[in-house]
C-alpha cells in the first residue's frame, strides 16, 4: 500500500531550507561574484528548484518507480519495440572505471581500449548486416534513417544527380516519412498488397529517375518477410535508386539472412531493440547505420579506423570520411548503449545470435497459434518475430475494442501489446513476445486474452480496475495542456 504522500509532487514536498546534497566549502580564495561576472549577467533571484532531502528524493522516486510496468517485472509484448530481457552484466560492465568516465576529447592514445571496442562493434554490425561500412554516430533509429538519407543524397549529388523522391509502404513506421521530409525529400506512400506486402505494381508505377530511396522494413511491420525483396531491390536499382532497410525488425533474421544479401544498400540498427540496450522509459536508444562500400565515403564522422602497423597507442583512430555529410550529433554517438550492445554480441556469438531469432520467431508463431481463433491475424500464415492481430471480430460482435483488451491486460499483470499500429489493420493488436519469454508465460498470456474476450464489455470499457489510475482523459489534457507543476498540492 502507498499513502497519499507517495505520489505528491516534488514541489509539494519542498520545505525552505531542506537540502539533498552538500558541497565542500571553497578551498580557494573567494572573490565577490560581481568581480568575476558583470552584474547584468547575474541572476537577481535564485532558481525555483524545490528544497528536499536526499531521503525525500529517494522515497519519492522509488515510490514512483513502483507505478511502472517494466521488463524486469512484467511480460511486455509491445509489438515493434522488441522489449526483451536486459542482461544485468551489461549494466555492471558499462559502468566500469575506464569505460564510463572517459571524456570525448581525451588524447586518442589514452582511448585505445574504447576505440578498439567500438571498432570491433563496427565490424560485427557490418558482418550481421552484410554491409561493409558502419557509422556508430546516430543517437537513435530515427536519426539513423535521417543520416542514411543524407548519405544517399550526398552520393547522388556527387554523381551529379538531384533526386527528389523517397518511397515507403503505407505500413511504414512514422519515422520513415518524417525523416525523409526533414532530409528535404518528397514523400511518396505506397499501397500494400492483399497479403500485406509491398505491392509491386504500385511500386513500379512510382519508380522513375527521381526516385532516390525506397525505405522498407523487412520483415515488415505486419511481421511478414517481404519475399519479393530481391526483385523489389532490383526494380529500385534499375531506376538508379537505393534501397533502405529499416532495421527495427532485425531481431527476426539474425544469422538467417542479411539486408546486404537481399538487396539493401543502407540500414540502421536499433541497438536498444535488437541488442538489448535497455529502453530507459523512452530512451536512450542508439541507431548506427551500415551501408555499401560505394557509400562509405559519405558517412558522418567520426568513424573508427584501424591501422595494425601504427605506432603503439595509435592503432585505432577517429577519422572523418573524405566526402562526409558532416556530423549528425556532437561527439561520437550513444557510446553507453553501444557498449551494452557489444556485451550482448560478445555473449551470444554467431550461434547464440541465430538462436535469438529462432526463439523469437518460435515464440511469436506459437502465441499466434494460441490466439488465432479469438484474435484473427488478417495477413500471412507464418509470421516472423511479431504479428498483427485484429480485434475487429470482437468489436463487431460485442463492442470489445483493441484498447479494451489492452487496458484489461494490465489488471492481469501483463503489459499491453501495441494497439492501433500499423494503421493498415483495423483494431490492430501487435504482439511481439521476443525470445526471452518462456512457454509458460505465453500460455498464461493467451489464456488471459481468451478469458478477457468472455468478460462483460461494459466492465472492459472501464478497465483497468487495479492500477493506480484508469483511463486518463487525453482530450482534456490536449485541450488545456498542463505541462509543469503549477500547484503545491
Amino acid at each position, binding site marked *: 500500500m502507498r499513502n497519499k504522500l507517495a505520489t505528491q509532487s516534488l514541489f509539494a514536498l519542498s520545505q525552505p531550507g531542506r537540502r539533498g546534497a552538500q558541497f565542500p566549502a571553497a578551498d580557494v580564495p573567494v572573490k565577490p561574484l560581481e568581480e568575476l561576472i558583470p552584474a547584468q549577467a547575474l541572476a537577481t533571484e535564485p532558481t525555483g528548484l524545490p528544497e528536499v532531502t536526499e531521503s525525500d528524493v529517494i522515497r519519492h522516486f522509488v515510490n*514512483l518507480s513502483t507505478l511502472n510496468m517494466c521488463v524486469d517485472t512484467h511480460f511486455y509484448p509491445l509489438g515493434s519495440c522488441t522489449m526483451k530481457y536486459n542482461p544485468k552484466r551489461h549494466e555492471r560492465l558499462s559502468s566500469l572505471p575506464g569505460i564510463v568516465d572517459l571524456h570525448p576529447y581525451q588524447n586518442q592514445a589514452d582511448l585505445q581500449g574504447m576505440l578498439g571496442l567500438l571498432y570491433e562493434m563496427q565490424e560485427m554490425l557490418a558482418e550481421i548486416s552484410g554491409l561493409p561500412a558502419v557509422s556508430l554516430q546516430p543517437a537513435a533509429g*530515427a536519426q539513423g534513417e535521417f543520416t542514411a538519407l543524407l548519405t544517399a543524397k550526398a552520393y547522388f549529388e556527387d554523381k551529379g544527380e538531384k533526386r527528389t523522391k523517397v518511397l515507403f509502404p503505407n505500413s511504414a513506421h512514422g519515422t520513415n516519412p518524417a525523416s525523409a521530409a526533414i532530409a528535404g525529400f518528397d514523400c511518396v506512400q505506397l499501397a500494400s498488397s492483399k497479403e500485406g506486402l509491398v505491392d509491386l505494381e504500385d511500386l513500379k508505377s512510382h519508380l522513375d529517375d527521381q526516385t532516390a530511396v525506397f525505405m522498407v522494413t523487412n520483415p515488415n511491420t505486419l511481421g511478414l518477410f517481404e519475399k519479393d525483396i530481391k526483385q523489389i531491390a532490383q526494380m529500385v536499382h534499375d531506376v538508379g535508386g537505393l534501397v533502405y532497410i529499416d532495421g527495427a525488425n532485425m531481431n527476426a533474421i539474425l544469422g538467417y539472412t542479411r539486408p546486404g544479401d537481399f538487396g539493401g544498400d543502407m540500414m540502421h540498427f536499433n541497438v536498444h531493440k535488437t541488442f538489448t540496450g535497455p529502453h530507459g522509459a523512452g530512451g536512450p536508444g542508439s541507431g548506427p547505420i551500415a551501408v555499401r562500400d560505394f557509400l562509405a565515403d559519405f558517412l558522418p564522422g567520426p568513424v573508427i579506423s584501424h591501422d595494425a602497423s601504427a605506432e603503439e597507442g595509435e592503432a585505432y583512430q577517429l577519422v572523418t570520411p573524405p566526402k562526409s555529410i558532416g556530423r549528425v550529433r556532437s561527439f561520437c554517438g550513444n557510446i553507453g548503449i553501444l557498449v551494452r550492445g557489444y556485451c550482448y554480441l560478445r555473449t551470444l556469438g554467431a550461434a547464440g545470435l541465430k538462436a535469438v531469432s529462432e526463439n523469437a520467431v*518460435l515464440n511469436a508463431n506459437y502465441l499466434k497459434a494460441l490466439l488465432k481463433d479469438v484474435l484473427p491475424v488478417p495477413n500471412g500464415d507464418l509470421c516472423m518475430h511479431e504479428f498483427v492481430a485484429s480485434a475487429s471480430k470482437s468489436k463487431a460482435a460485442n463492442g470489445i475494442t483493441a484498447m479494451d483488451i489492452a487496458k484489461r491486460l494490465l489488471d492481469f499483470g501483463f503489459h499491453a501489446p501495441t494497439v492501433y499500429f500499423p494503421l493498415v489493420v483495423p483494431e490492430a493488436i501487435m504482439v511481439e513476445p521476443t525470445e526471452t519469454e518462456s512457454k509458460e508465460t505465453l500460455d498464461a498470456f493467451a489464456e488471459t486474452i481468451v478469458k478477457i474476450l468472455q468478460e462483460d464489455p461494459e466492465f472492459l470499457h472501464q478497465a483497468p480496475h487495479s492500477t493506480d489510475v484508469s483511463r486518463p482523459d487525453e482530450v482534456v489534457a490536449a485541450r488545456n495542456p498542463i505541462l509543469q507543476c503549477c500547484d503545491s498540492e
Partner: protein
Amino acid sequence: MSYLFNTPEQQQQMLQTIGVDSLEALFSTIPSDLRLDRPLDLPPALTEMELQKHFSNLASQNVGPGDRVCMLGGGAYDHFVPAAVDEIARRGEFYTAYTPYQAEASQGSLQTFFEFQSLICQLTGMDVSNASLYEGGTCVSEAAFMAMRVTNRHNRVVLLGSLHPEYRQVVETYLRHLNCEVVIVPCKDGSVDPADVDAAMDDQTACLVIQHPNFFGTLEEAAELTEIAHRYGALSVVSYDPISLGILSRPGDYGADIAIAEGQSLGTPLQFGGPYLGLFSCSEKFVRRMPGRLIGQTVDRNGKRCYVLNLQAREQHIRRDKATSNICSNQGLIAIRAAVYLSLLGKQGIREVAELSCQKAHYAADQLTSVEGIELLFPERPYFKEFAVSCSEGADYLLRKARQAGFDLGPELSRFTFENNPESYQTAVLVAITEQRTREEIDRLVTALKA
C-alpha cells in the same frame, strides 16, 4: 544460452502447436536464395566471467579521469554525480520500461518526466519544457527547424561564431539540404560583437542562435543579442550551460524564445560522449510547434490526477511527414538522472555548484597565467567555469606536460574549424574547472608546469 528460456522439449511442443516440424521451417517465407549459408563470422561467445575479464582488459587500455585529474571541457564536464542519482537510474522499473504509451502502466515514468519538465522550467525561467531530446548539438537543429515553422522563414538562420563548433557542424548537416543558408557571425576576442550580429540579421532570418557561456567559456551579451533578434522578428535561441544558471540570469528572464542545452552536467557520467541529454524549453505560445515528447497532467475516469503523453498529434507516429520532427525515442533515462540530480541539489545546491566552479576556475586561471608563456587567450572577457589559455611553446607542449603530471586539459582549439581562424587559436587549449577540482590539484598542476 541463459537469455533463452524454452527447453528443446518445449520447443517441440510449440512447433507441434504451430504445425511445423522444425525451427528451420519457421523461416520458410525467406526465399532459399536469400539465406545466409554459413554462420556469421563473429568473435567467439564469452561467458559472463570471461566477458568481465575481457572488459577489465579493455578498460585498462584506457586512461580515464580515475587515473588523471580531468580539466577537459568543450561541452562535456566532470561534475560530481551524487550516489542517489545512480541508485534511482539503476532501478529496473525505470531503465527496463518503455515509452509510456499505456499511461496506467507507466505513471512512474510519466510523473517523473512531468517533474523533469517542471524542474527545467524552474531552472531556465521558460514556460514549457519537453521531456528531452538526444543531446546538445541536435537541439540546435531542432530549434532552428522550430523557428523556421514559427516565423515561416525557411531560408536563413544566423549562428554566433562562438557556438560549439560541433553543434555548428550538426546544424550545417541538418540544414544544408533544405536550401537554408546558415550564416555565422565571426567571434572576435572570445565573444561576438552585437553590432556584427545586427549587421548579419535581416527580416528573412528565422532565428539567432546564441551560446552563453559560449564555446570558449566566456559570456556573450545574451540579453542584448536577444533584443536584436526580436528587432528583426527572429526567434532568440539560447544554448546555455545548465550549471551556470545557478548564478547567471536565466534565458527566460531576458526573453529568449527557445532555450536549449546539453544536460550531461546534470548527473550523467562522461561515458565518452553519450548518451547525453538534450534540454529543450520555450515560450508557451510555441508549445504546439515544439519537437519531442510532452507529458501533460490530466485526470482519470475517477477524477484522480494523473499524467499522459500529451499533444501527440504533433509527432511522427501521427503526423508522419508533417510532424514537428522525426524524433521518436528521446533520452528518458538520462532525463530521470537530471530530475533526481536537480531535486537533490535544489535551489541552494545548484547555486553552490555554480559558485564553486566559477570561483575555482578563476583561481585556476590566475595560477596558470602565473606560469611563464601561459596567457589567457581572451583576457578581457568574463567567463564562468571554462577559459582558453595560449601557450607560447604550443598547445601540444602544454597538453603533454600536463598529462605527464597527471592532468588532462583541453580540447585544443586546433582540433576544430572556426569561421575566422586566428593564428592565436593554434597554440590555445580550453581548461574547464568544476566543483570537483581542488586547490591542491590546481597548485600541483601549476607547480608541474613551472618545473
